[in-house]
């Protein structure tokens, strides 16, 4: 059994609104193991991102315990890097400087400037953007921006990579491209990942386990699907793979049959 990186025990999240208490999440129990890729899937508004923000430490749970590396998650930390849906690059910094900001924060205490620059350079090389270091975010495409976001997250050498619908805003071809690259990067770095998605194919393709959330309010984990497909995975071969089809069907069954949204 591999080591647990993140433990979520009986966690609930509720917000006080004008109309009273709104329960977003309840009774969440989940362990995330080292080197594992997890997809969080569910209908929009079910609290997928809320759960991710809890792991990131951007919000604190109303009840329950959240541990990372055996210690309570009290706030954001460099061991849990986040890739945001809308890339969130700072428009006044170059790609290099955007990544450098993260590198500097994590490693400046121990390493010299040359080493920090080397790390930044390597992170951008990993996502295939070494040539665009001096460009500003507005000068590059949406897919490239998302790559810089991934490079920024990876450059911190996090124990776990948290991704909030990272490819949601991209066109299908770019998305497929980045998914393939992400698989390569995960295989090379053996990183742990939690990804929020609403794309069934993406969930099956990228993850070892698909965590399916029930509809909100008061969403909780409905089912967990083990994706037993061997790595490395090939998108084309999987298109006709029976196991892939079964996983897909199981998630579809959950989303569109058991958790069908009443006319939203």
């Amino acid at each position: 059994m591999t080591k647990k990186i993140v433990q979520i025990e009986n966690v609930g999240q509720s917000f006080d609104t004008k109309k009273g208490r709104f329960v977003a999440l309840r009774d969440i129990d989940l362990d995330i193991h080292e080197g594992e890729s997890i997809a969080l899937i569910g209908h929009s508004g079910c609290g997928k991102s809320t759960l991710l923000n809890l792991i990131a430490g951007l919000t604190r749970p109303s009840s329950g315990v959240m541990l990372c590396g055996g210690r309570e998650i009290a706030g954001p930390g460099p061991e849990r890097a986040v890739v945001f849906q809308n890339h969130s690059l700072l428009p006044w910094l170059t790609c290099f400087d955007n990544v450098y900001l993260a590198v500097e924060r994590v490693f400046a205490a121990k390493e010299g400037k040359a080493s920090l620059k080397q790390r930044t350079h390597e992170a951008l090389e990993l996502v295939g953007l070494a040539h665009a270091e001096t460009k500003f975010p507005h000068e590059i495409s949406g897919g490239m921006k998302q790559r810089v976001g991934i490079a920024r997250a990876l450059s911190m050498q996090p124990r776990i990579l948290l991704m909030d619908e990272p490819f949601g805003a991209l066109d299908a071809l770019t998305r497929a491209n980045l998914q393939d690259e992400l698989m390569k990067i995960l295989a090379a770095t053996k990183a742990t990942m939690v990804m929020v998605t609403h794309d069934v194919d993406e969930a099956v393709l990228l993850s070892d386990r698909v965590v399916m959330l029930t509809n909100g309010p008061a969403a909780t984990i409905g089912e967990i699907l083990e994706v037993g497909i061997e790595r490395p995975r090939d998108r084309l071969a999987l298109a006709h793979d029976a196991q892939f089809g079964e996983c897909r069907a199981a998630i579809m069954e959950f989303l569109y049959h058991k958790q069908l949204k009443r006319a939203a």
Partner: protein
Amino acid sequence: MTAAMIAARPGNMAGTDATEADAGRTAVSIDETGNELPATASASKVADGVKEKAEKSLSLPAEPLAGRIGEWARALLGIVLPPLAGLALLIGIWHLATFGGGGIPGPGQTWDAAVALFSDPFYVDGPNDQGIGWNVLASLERVGIGFGIAALVGIPAGFLLGRFALLSQMLNPIISLLRPVSPLAWLPIGLLVFQRADPAATWTIFICSIWPMILNTAQGVTRVPQDYLNVARVLNLSEWKVFTRILFPAVLPYMLTGIRLSIGTAWLVIVAAEMLTGGVGIGFWVWDEWNNLKVEHIIIAIFVIGIVGLILEQMLMLVARRFSYENR
């Protein structure tokens, strides 16, 4: 490359038509005023010349350089001609309105006075009789000092107000109450406190230029996208890094808007303040020339004030464009 140039041709021809129409319109406006001012006449001559050049360049597609010059000249003409036509119209109306005599001098008279005035803008003949250059500089200095202090106080205050909700709840009602007050109402307070006219005028500038800077900076701080602040939190940046790398660059465009509004108001107010406080300055100069009944000087002063204000505005627009990341 040639294909692109050929493809671009029809658009160019349309551009030529527009220029010709513009030139025609200018000629008509000259006829209407019945007064061929030398500047406008030469402008229309230039227009004819350019028209010829443009036609030549169209008939010689083998010469891309000439074509490019013609294109460039046409673009320039499109920008320059309409404002010139407007100015000609204004001068024409001015001329007609003052034709029958009366207290207000006509364009020609004012022009002569301006030539005399600007031939020696920096003379000093006692404290109350100095060249127009010194007067403008004195006013600019007051605006600079008052505005500078206002920026030093107002911008940090704006950051605090934007960052701390309690502070903004405390001070917003006060700001709302004081902001609509005419800055000149503060002049007596300044005179009382400083006992001298000069700092009182500066004080008035300070008061009128501080509000836009506080309010715009505060608004900019509250409008920093949550995404960027989340980045700061996830990266766990130090307060100093958050300020220099996220808060300040994100707020800068709002801050510059505040500065622009402030300078505009300050330049409006200084004329009135100086009329009341006296000394050297363009506002006092206007008042002085009124007492001397040199009305043409007052009209010159109006133009000078307008031009200086325009230059200040354009300079700040340039700075703002340099630092705006939103349109990127």
